[in-house]
């Protein structure tokens, strides 16, 4: 892993197009500003983790036994 030390208001550039600035340092919290082109999506790592964990839970829970019944509900609308 590349490790860079940055001070307040200093930046790093990734791949010529993503700019990350240190905007504020307060106690154990750092506020970062991220400038990136629209095709670069930025998420908190917790979002990735939450979906990974939910996928694992879903895979565990998908037993081969009967699925819950949603009978009495309308059929799925026809797709074009």
């Amino acid at each position, binding site marked *: 892993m590349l490790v860079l030390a940055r001070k307040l208001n200093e930046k790093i550039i990734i791949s010529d197009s993503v700019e990350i600035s240190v905007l504020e340092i307060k106690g154990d919290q750092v506020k970062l500003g991220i400038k990136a082109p*629209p095709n*670069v999506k930025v998420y908190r790592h917790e979002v990735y983790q939450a*979906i990974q964990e939910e996928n694992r839970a879903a*895979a565990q829970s998908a037993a081969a036994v009967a699925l819950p019944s949603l009978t009495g509900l*309308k*059929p799925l609308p026809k797709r074009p």
Partner: protein
Amino acid sequence: MKINTKPYGEIEIDARQVIRFPQGLLGFEERHDWALLDSTQAPFLWLQSLDEAALAFVLLQPDYFRPDYVLDLSELDRESLGKPEDADLLVFAICTIPADQSRMTANLQGPVVVNRKDGIGRQTIQSSPQWKVRHHILEEMAASGVR
């Protein structure tokens, strides 16, 4: 082609049911080849791994219980899906079904999107804080007036 499935053992499927996930699914990044199976219990479907018979997900189309669900696809998502027409897109939520099945949940933050024309899939991430990894299907169905 014949495949081994978690819910139904060995079954015959059509090549059109095979979906390639170039990035895998989150937490299952190395699993690229899947098949979309009708379930014997509609409206659920199965997403079955072709590499690992014991790995399968239960899917539900989000608008079945949340008619207000709107998918937000990024440019990156569209590129990964082979730049599909909207009409060729299918959207699914992965379901988690606990022992008490009435508490089953669906993941609307990480929906699985399929380009059915080209057989390409991707698990997307929705940025809207409205969509979580655990939505209670039956409760929200009742709340949204879907019957």
